[in-house]
């Protein structure tokens, strides 16, 4: 009886799966853009938790790994468009690092669909909402990142 009940619960959980998405954003562009989306009252998926950093250049790829370690289902990384960096070149450096990190994470079996990269400027509140909505539906389709959680639990 217990196992049946457990299965029912699991199904219920899966049906109600709401992805937990962590967004690492730069202070100058995307964070302001997200703020604009909020003040403009643009509706978007409530699944994203924003972590604000000075620059995409400050976003170590290990932040992404750490987010997955701590139970994230997906990650958004977003900052200023190339050429718009407040610190002139932080996003150019970041772009190279992310390009490599993405492929390495993919090689280790982290579905690259779980990590979304975007450039969102301070005036692109609309684009931010689209990034959030698309990332949420994309990660929802991939389902919970149970493989990583099982690592944490030492299961499997």
């Amino acid at each position: 009886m217990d196992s049946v009940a457990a299965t029912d619960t699991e199904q219920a959980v899966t049906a109600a799966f709401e992805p937990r998405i962590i967004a690492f954003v730069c202070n100058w562009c995307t964070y302001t853009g997200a703020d604009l989306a909020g003040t403009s009252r643009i509706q978007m998926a409530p699944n994203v938790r924003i972590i604000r950093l000075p620059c995409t250049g400050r976003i170590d790829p290990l932040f992404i790994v750490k987010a997955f370690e701590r139970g994230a289902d997906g990650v958004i990384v977003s900052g200023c468009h190339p050429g718009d960096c407040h610190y002139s070149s932080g996003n150019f450096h970041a772009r190279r690092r992310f390009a490599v990190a993405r492929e390495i994470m993919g090689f280790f079996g982290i579905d690259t669909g779980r990590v979304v990269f975007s450039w969102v400027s301070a005036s692109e509140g609309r684009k931010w909402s689209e990034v959030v909505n698309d990332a949420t539906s994309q990660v929802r389709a991939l389902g919970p990142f149970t493989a990583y959680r099982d690592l944490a639990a030492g299961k499997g």
Partner: protein
Amino acid sequence: MRELIGLCQKLLRDGDVKVVIGYEEGPRGVRPAVITDPAGCERLVFDHRAVHNLVAYLSPRRGHLRDLGRAAVVVKGCDVAAFATLLRESQLEREGAVLVGVRCGGVYRSAAGSGPLDEKNVADRCGDCGLREPGTVDHLVGELPAAPPVSGRRAARIAEIENMSPAERFAYWREVLADCVRCNACRSACPLCVCERCLADKTDPRWVESSPHPRGNLSWHMARALHLAGRCVDCGDCERACPFGIPLTLINGKVGLVMRERFGFAPGEDPEVPAPIGTFDTDDSQEFIR
């Protein structure tokens, strides 16, 4: 061999160097040798078993060897690439060591290899080597041997892993890395792991769990790959040092592929060639960014 021995003896006698780091016969194939006495240079050998990257002994982390004084190091072309990386990163000074280059015909996978080099026993990195006759060394000895055979083994294995689904890849690495006891032999053996304080040792915040736990193991090996991106010269000493035979060179090989395909970068002996990470091009491809 006489040429190598004679040269090293002369370097020691003339006082150019205080110590020679080369290869000698050991219980299982050749092993690194640290020689301070000209007579000791008679022990030097160099052949297909000279797998180790002796530039590792020049790393600023190895202070006890540096304290011996200026060193002459026996190097293959691929080892010179590691030296160039350390120069590029201002970890060493060019005059800090005398490089005794040896023309190289490839090495075995293991220092205990024997017999003629073939596709089975040759190191994965030797196949398309363009550094068999290093040009930036202080002395160059030996005749250029025949080119080593090409092993397609690792490339095939990497392709196999790439063709798996993400879930299968995750499961694969999970299983492979389950053997890791986090002894950090890979880190210690690496000529390019030069940080005085490794992020894996940081506890505030704790970046990487230090116990041998699947989650920390995965993070550590990803961090290692990320930190060696554009730096790794593929010497394979990490994999040889691993007491559990974790196929670390698969990871390094993949990183190398990414560097070549995305940035056209391959490790070379010119420290002036900029590394791909830490530099950028405003036109870098960004097909993965929306």
